[in-house]
């Protein structure tokens, strides 16, 4: 029997909490050909499998070893789960190829997941990269809209 939307959301919360807050990317919660479609931080291609997820999480956890995920909102229906979140951490390893700033950084984003047979099959993400670069002082904050 297919998972309920609530069960799907619980799988996603478990997966993303564990991945971001401990570094353990749980392959058992991904389908064998799961794809992470996000292109954050200069990632250039999306290969199916756990490696793509490990790459993104590993890159940010290397830059910010104390990185912590906070869920801000969750919406789930049918086979989709959508999360709005923030990530906070201290930049001791260098974000997106830049030298370490030593600053505490916070950036927000959204993640959409398609579930299949109770596992994560696809992930899309939008991340406030400009806000991140502004906090790093790489780009000065422009005036309001």
């Amino acid at each position, binding site marked *: 029997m297919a998972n309920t939307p609530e069960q799907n959301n619980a799988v996603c919360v478990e997966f993303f909490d564990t991945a971001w807050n401990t570094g353990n990317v749980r392959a058992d919660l991904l389908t064998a050909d799961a794809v992470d479609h996000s292109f954050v931080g200069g990632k250039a291609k999306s290969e199916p499998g756990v490696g793509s997820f490990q790459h993104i999480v590993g890159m940010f956890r290397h830059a910010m070893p104390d990185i912590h995920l906070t869920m801000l909102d969750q*919406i789930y229906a*049918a086979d989709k789960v959508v999360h709005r979140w923030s990530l906070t951490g201290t930049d001791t390893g260098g974000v997106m190829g830049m030298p370490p700033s030593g600053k505490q950084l916070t950036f927000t984003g959204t993640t*959409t997941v398609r579930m299949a047979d109770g596992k994560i099959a696809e992930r899309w993400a939008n*991340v406030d*990269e*400009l806000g991140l670069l502004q906090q790093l002082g790489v780009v000065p904050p422009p005036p309001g809209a």
Partner: protein
Amino acid sequence: MDRIEENTEHIQRFFDEIWSAGNMETVDELCDPQFQFILAFAHLDGREAFKNLVRNNRRIFENLTYKTTPDDIVTTDLKGAAFWNMSTTKHSDTWRNVPASNNPVAIKGMTFFRFNEDGKFTEARVQNDVISMMKQINGIKMLYDS
């Protein structure tokens, strides 16, 4: 039509009629008067402030179009989220501090919505690819030079 179908239809109309067609009557029909429109860099308080933003952006970005489909929309009774693709044929006036580049622009983004009990939008929170937008209109270079 149940509430979830109605919410999905309203989100579709939010992009088709308000953003792509500039129909301000649809803002009045679908949005609560205290509607909040929240971006990473701005927080607009009230329906009239939102209308001004739509008018401004539609003036600055020619043929501004937002595309989403029911497959890109997830809704419950009081919440919704939609993936969208935005495009414009020409950035023809200053946006934030970046002067007209005359470039076409295309970016992706996502909007989170909240509905009240009457099915009106009370909040839209946008997460869009501003860095890609800035690159396409030469804004990153401008910011470095400023």
